[in-house]
Every structure is written in structure tokens, then in C-alpha cells.
């Protein structure tokens, strides 16, 4: 079937199905049309909404500056698709090339893109998670419900988990003047993503803005009143926090369950794919008709020793979607690898936080510009003698420079002087990341390369 003319025919009259109607799904659909795909395009999404942007959900929306129902993504071009919204895909038959839907329908494809992303990790005890006033924040509906509750003026908000999302929520609550307690298992906020040195600055920021920050503790139980409203949280240090709104911000779970039994290399750590976004099957053979992009994908990255990288970054979803769409319609020699340097932003307590590369891979940090005390600095992360990542607090304009150092595998510590380097930034120090074997909610980047010592994945060959 492959061979001369197949791609031309695919472009003219093929069937492409995208599962996951969000950022990656929409940008892939737009690219398919830009690259001349004229066949039928079906976009399947379990949420009832058309694609919307998530970053504003924990920022503008919680600050009351935008409605949660007003974050739909701009359309960069027409996609002329059949939209199947509000219905989850429940299975994949690779032999018959069909996607099964929850309503019993089946959609045939010649090429499939999986962009099902992640969902919020729920509070582990179901009965407590059900209490009125307990929230997670991933979707537009989550954000609308939470914003409404914050409008009502709760007595105290408890945020469980001080990763990026948890910290942004705490920030928005303080800006609204609400009393906030943050409980974090690690030693500081953002410690999983940025390490303890930078985490200490994040902790200082929170406290300066009036957050009751408790680190090194776990919430062990949530308790409701007789009418089923959350009332109090019990902490591992024996203390309690009275709160009528609790936001569980413990990271994300990849939406891959619907692929079980499909034979695709999909599991809790995402869908394994090659640098061109083609999904692997469970035998480690790359498929040629199934692609993955965005938060759900994990793929080898040339800059990071070809280890498998899973990213929960907006920019990554956009760039992988474009690569996947391009490659779907291309001869093998014209395919492109996904080689973007990971990049991430966050805004909290009025500070613009941005990172490039993979700071969480670094072992050392050098404050190359500004100072930690001023909460305005650039930190460069080193790993085995090279620059592997950088973070900026209110110094975003310098990041392209550091990105270039990462791209060119420059040596660490950088041998040259940078502007505005202070005496305390002359020498690298331990970046102070938590022991990776202790799970944190934290990093939005996960290295998940297989090693023979890794026994957590079970593989049962059929023969």
C-alpha cells in the first residue's frame, strides 16, 4: 500500500483522526490543513468544549480578570474538521485502524494522532475528594467552579502541593485577599522542578505575600462537616488547618488508559514515540500510522542523551503537534525531528518565572546574574560539566542567551563573565534537588528512559 503515490492519495482523500481536542490537537489540525491535507479530518474530545487555553485558568481566571468560558484558543486558520466533542475515545483497534468511542461509534483512520494530554491527580481518598469545597484544577469547568467559590469569599483556602499550579493558585488567592495555607511535602515550593536553592526564594516570596506556607508536611486526611462540606485538614506533623476550600494540586496523570490492550507502547508515563512523534508499539517497533504529541507523549531528545522526556509544557505541545502533523504527510526523508529546547513560564506573586532546558536534570546551580536576595536573577544549571538548564526570576530577556548555551552544550560553569554577576554568584553550588526516588508532585518534566534496573514496568511477551 505504501509506495509511489500513497502519500499523494493520503493528502487528497485520506482520513486523519485526532484524539484530544485541546492545544496539541488543534495546532496539529491547523498544520495538516496548511500542509495541504484535503481529506477528512475528525477531532475527538471528551470535554464538551472546543479547544481552550489552560495557562490562564490558574492566572487570569482565578484573579477574576477573565471568565473561564472565555479562554477558547484562537484559530490560526480554518481546519474544516468533523468535531466529536463530549465523547471519550475508549479503545483503539490497530489492525482494523479504528478508534472506538464511548457512544459505541467507531471512527476509521489512515493516520491517527493521539493528543489526550494529562488530567489532575485526584485526592487519593475518594470519599474525601467528594467533599464539597475540594477542587482540582485542570479543566475549564474546574476553574469556573473554583473561581465561583473564591468569589464567595471563603474563610481560608488550603492548597495541597506547591508545584507551579499550586503556587499560582496560592498567589491568586492572596491577591484576592483570601487567607491561604499551602502544604508541601518537599522542603520548599517548586523544589521538584527547580531545586532547593531556587525553591528557597519561592518560599520567601510566598511568605512575604502572607501565605501560611508549611513545608516538609503531608496532608493525611480531609474532614467534612455533617452537610458534607470540607472543614478541616489533618497534617502529618499532627497539626490541623481549618479550611472551607481545598485545592488538590498534586500533579498529573497521563490519559493513556483507553489505549490498554491496543498493543501501543502506552502506560502511566505516557506514549513512547520517536523523535518524529511516531508512536512505538509495545514490542519497541515504531508505527508509521500513529503519532503522539503534547503532554501525553514521551520521546527521546538529542540534547539529553536521547533519554525519553515527558514534558507538561505549552510550547512543547505546540511544537510537537506541528512536527507530528508534518511527518504524517511526509516521506521518511522529509520528516523532521522534534528538537526544541524545553521552555516553560509561570507567573506568581507578581514575579515572572521562566525556565529553559531541563533544570531538574542539573546537579549544580550558578547564579550568573542578579541575586537570590533580590528575587531577581538568572540561575544556570549544570550537569556533568555542561549547561543543561536555566531559570529566570524577572529576568526573562536573558533566557535566549542561555538557551543557546544549552543548545550548543556549552561547558559548565560558563567560563566567561556575565553582566550583573554578584560576588555570591562566582561559584556553582549544589542545586539541591530532592532524592528522585522520593516522588514529588513537582517537576513538569520527567525523564523516563528505560534502564535494565527499572522493574516498575511489566512486560509480558505474547510468545
Amino acid at each position: 500500500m505504501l509506495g509511489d503515490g500513497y502519500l499523494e492519495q493520503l493528502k487528497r482523500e485520506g482520513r486523519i483522526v485526532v484524539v484530544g481536542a485541546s492545544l496539541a490537537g488543534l495546532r496539529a489540525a491547523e498544520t495538516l490543513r496548511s500542509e495541504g491535507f484535503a481529506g477528512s479530518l475528525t477531532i475527538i474530545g471528551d470535554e464538551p468544549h472546543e479547544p481552550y487555553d489552560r495557562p490562564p485558568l490558574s492566572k487570569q481566571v482565578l484573579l477574576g480578570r477573565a471568565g473561564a468560558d472565555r479562554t477558547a484558543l484562537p484559530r490560526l486558520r480554518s481546519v474544516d474538521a468533523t468535531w466529536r466533542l463530549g465523547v471519550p475515545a475508549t479503545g483503539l483497534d490497530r489492525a482494523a485502524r479504528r478508534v472506538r468511542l464511548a457512544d459505541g461509534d467507531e471512527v476509521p483512520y489512515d493516520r491517527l494522532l493521539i493528543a489526550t494530554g494529562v488530567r489532575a491527580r485526584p485526592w487519593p481518598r475518594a470519599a474525601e475528594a467528594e467533599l464539597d469545597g475540594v477542587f482540582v484544577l485542570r479543566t475549564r469547568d474546574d476553574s469556573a467552579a473554583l473561581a465561583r467559590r473564591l468569589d464567595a469569599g471563603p474563610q481560608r483556602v488550603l492548597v495541597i502541593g506547591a508545584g507551579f499550579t499550586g503556587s499560582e493558585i496560592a498567589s491568586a488567592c492572596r491577591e484576592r485577599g483570601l487567607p491561604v495555607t499551602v502544604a508541601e511535602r518537599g522542603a520548599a515550593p517548586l523544589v521538584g522542578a527547580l531545586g532547593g536553592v531556587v525553591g528557597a526564594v519561592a518560599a520567601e516570596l510566598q511568605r512575604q505575600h502572607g501565605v501560611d506556607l508549611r513545608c516538609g508536611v503531608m496532608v493525611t486526611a480531609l474532614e467534612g462537616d455533617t452537610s458534607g462540606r470540607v472543614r478541616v485538614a489533618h497534617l502529618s506533623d499532627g497539626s490541623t488547618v481549618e479550611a472551607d476550600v481545598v485545592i488538590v494540586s498534586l500533579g498529573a496523570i497521563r490519559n493513556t488508559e483507553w489505549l490498554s490492550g491496543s498493543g501501543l507502547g502506552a502506560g502511566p508515563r505516557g506514549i513512547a514515540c520517536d523523535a518524529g512523534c511516531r508512536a512505538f508499539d509495545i514490542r519497541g517497533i515504531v508505527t508509521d500510522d500513529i503519532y503522539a504529541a503534547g503532554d501525553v507523549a514521551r520521546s527521546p531528545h538529542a540534547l539529553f542523551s536521547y533519554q525519553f522526556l515527558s514534558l507538561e509544557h505549552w510550547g512543547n505541545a505546540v511544537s510537537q503537534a506541528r512536527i507530528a502533523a508534518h511527518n504524517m504527510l511526509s516521506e521518511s526523508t522529509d520528516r523532521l525531528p522534534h528538537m526544541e529546547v524545553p521552555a516553560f513560564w509561570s507567573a506568581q506573586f507578581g514575579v515572572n518565572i521562566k525556565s529553559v532546558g531541563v533544570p531538574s536534570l542539573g546537579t549544580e546551580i550558578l547564579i550568573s546574574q542578579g541575586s537570590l536576595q533580590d528575587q531577581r536573577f538568572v540561575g544556570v544549571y549544570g550537569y556533568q560539566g555542561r549547561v543543561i538548564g536555566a531559570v529566570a526570576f524577572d529576568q526573562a530577556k536573558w533566557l535566549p542567551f542561555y538557551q543557546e548555551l544549552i543548545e550548543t552544550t556549552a561547558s559548565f560553569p560558563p567560563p566567561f563573565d556575565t553582566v550583573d554577576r554578584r560576588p555570591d554568584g562566582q561559584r556553582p553550588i549544589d542545586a539541591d534537588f530532592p532524592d528522585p526516588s522520593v516522588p514529588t508532585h513537582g517537576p513538569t518534566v520527567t525523564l523516563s528512559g528505560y534502564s535494565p534496573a527499572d522493574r516498575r514496568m511489566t512486560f509480558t511477551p505474547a510468545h
Partner: protein
Amino acid sequence: MRIAVDLNRCQGYAQCAFLAPEIFAMHGEEALLYDPEADEAQRAKLAQAAAACPVQAILVDAVDVPAEAVSGAR
């Protein structure tokens, strides 16, 4: 009119906040806040702001959204 800003690109030059203050505002020294769905009345200003952004970080609808209307059913 829908808006998304690629804040990885945005360098906080505040050009947009200067040209279309109803839509874009600085939050603290560098962080940018924007209204993801601006009023139709702001169309001209939004176009100016998007064009003026030195790193072209502002994404705006290129097609009329109703033409791309999404229906829940097939």
C-alpha cells in the same frame, strides 16, 4: 476575538500594554496578563498590538470563528 500569548517568546517589552491597555497589562515588573477574549470594539488596537510585538508572541484568530463552529454531535 480570541487571544493567546506565547509567553515563552514574550520578553515583557510591554509594547502591547502600551498600544492596547484594555487587553494587555503588566503584572509586576515583567509578567504579562491579558484578556483571552477581547471585545470586538478592540479589534483595531489588538491588530496594532499584535503587529508591534517585537517577538510576534501574540496569537489572534485568523479565521472567523463562527465559520469553524463546533457542534457537539457529529
